[in-house]
């Protein structure tokens, strides 16, 4: 069973992914800010991290960078959810070490497709 960590401060968006994955074999764990995202990743070592770009305490980009810098978590695939605010969001996500990115508002269908691609269901 694959574990997916979703780092997002908005309850409704977490709920979408929770319900999206409830019918799959993925186990979802959640974090509500960047710091918690990094800590949880280190403790739980999930198979995939979905990281929102704008988070309290620590930005999604910075959290991604920290995970990439840590050998224990460097190999975990990360999807960064950008908000397409200013030009170059995608580039920044790639530079920080994201394997893929998805612009908000994303289609749950596309997100599930991306998750399955990066961490195939066992």
């Amino acid at each position, binding site marked *: 069973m694959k574990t997916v960590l979703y780092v997002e401060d*908005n309850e409704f968006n977490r709920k979408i992914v929770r319900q999206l994955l409830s019918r799959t074999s993925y186990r979802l764990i959640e974090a509500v800010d960047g710091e918690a995202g990094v800590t949880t990743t280190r403790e739980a070592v999930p198979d995939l991290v979905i990281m929102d770009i704008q988070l309290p305490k620590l930005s999604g980009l910075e959290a991604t960078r920290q995970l990439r810098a840590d050998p224990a978590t460097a190999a975990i695939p990360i999807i960064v959810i950008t908000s*397409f605010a200013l030009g170059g969001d995608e580039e920044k996500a790639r530079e920080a070490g994201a394997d893929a990115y998805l612009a908000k508002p994303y289609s749950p269908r596309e997100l599930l497709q991306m998750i399955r691609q990066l961490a195939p269901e066992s």
Partner: protein
Amino acid sequence: MCPNERDRPVGSTGPVPETTPGLGERIPRLLLAYWPLGPLVRWVARLPTSVHSKLLGAFLLIALLLIALGAMSLQSIASVARQSRLLDQARERVDASRQIEHALGLQMTFTRNALLVRDDATIESIFRENNRFRDTFDRLEAAAPPDQRETIQRLRNTQDKVMATVARIAALIREDKADEAMDLHLSEGYPLYREIATLVTRAVRNEEAGMGQLREGVETTYRRALLLTGGFAAASIVLALGLGFVISWSFILPVRQAEGFLGQIAKGDFSATIDVPNRDEFGALARQMNEMSRELHQLYDDQRRAAHQLQVLNAELEQASRAKSNFLASMSHELRTPMNAILGFTEMIRDGLYGEVPPEIQDPVSDIHTCGKQLLGLINNVLDLSKIEAGHMELALGEYVVEDVVNTVKLSLRSLAATKGLEFVTTVPPDLPLSLGDGKRIIQCLMNLAGNALKFTREGRVEIGVEIEGETLRFAVSDTGIGIPADQVENIFEEFRQADATVSRDFGGTGLGLSITRKLVELHGGRIWVESQAGKGSTFFFSIPVRVAREAAA
């Protein structure tokens, strides 16, 4: 002029550039510092007359000196010539005196001969010689200076007596009284001859003494003339050199000062003022330069103040811009987060994630989804425009295929066209080169234009066409819609514009799409325009380079 500047040597006044001076520079400096030339230079500088007059004055002075020198030489030459002439005359007189002495000797001889031979011919020769004697006397007397006249008078008198005596001797000889004649000759004639000889000798001695004096006089005059001419020439040279030095330095010093002064100004130091003693053109120049420096200083200060204000303003603007960017970023995120939930949940409901959707709910759920998408479109437009206004819109340049771009637009709008029963055609020529630009933004532009075309057309067709002309791609979106009145074509691309306020009621929309499209086209280095006939339809064109220059889009 500062009162204490008088104490300083002239050579050191003003900001003369401090370079290692050569010999040609050190000598004038020394002269200016330690000779009375300094004050003289200052005096010339202070003369309230023009440079032209000063130069003319100096040249005239030198010319006058030369004229005086010439006159003096001429005078000396004349003096020497006069004395030489006197000397010649004295020599002539000495010659005459010698002739008299010689003639006297001859007379003595003739008289003796007459006494011995006792014939008339010899006596005749005595008289002849006596007559020649008289001629010489005349010459001598005419040429003699006054102090010699008396001697000559006495000589003449004595000669007359000799003549009388000789006549008597001659008479005695003719009467054959030789002894008496001999007695007369010895008692009267001979002493008279002796007297004449003495007188002649005295006259010659006097003349010779006078000649000596004259010779000395000539010598003295000559030496004095030589000295005077030499001295005058030397003085002229010194004066000419001095004048040249003084005048040139009275010009050079202010020029040097001006040079240093301008150098300081060039370095942005306006604290100095140029202060030259000159009351000529250089003085006027210095005054003008001071005036100029004051003006420049004022301008410089103003400019610095303005620059500082600009800097402050710039910093404030930068901060405001940063704040705006931050606000935009967080606003974008904050707006999208709930939109994400709305659209996400709707999609999952429609996808049957929560079980099969009852038929009567399907329609409202679909409406929620459509409205959500519309709201998202509006949010995107407002954010795009804000980004453009804030100067944060940047193109993500990459290679794209024009056909793919057009197909994406066609796929997205196909259903809308079908719903309205409109013909929707796209024409892309084959073999278009791979293009460079922001493909997503070009899709956005075409979506805006084609979306509008579909929106404002009730029947007929909408077409997207692409043409290539050299290095330029030209997109055209034409419709058979309501068209745009001619007077409103001009500002159709301005923000919040629609051809008519009623249009928005009938067709909806915020009027931001065209404005954003224009900005995006311009960011690609292209332009946009429209050809339209009200009631018949419109064609929107935009042209962009096939390959956008990277720095142009930055």
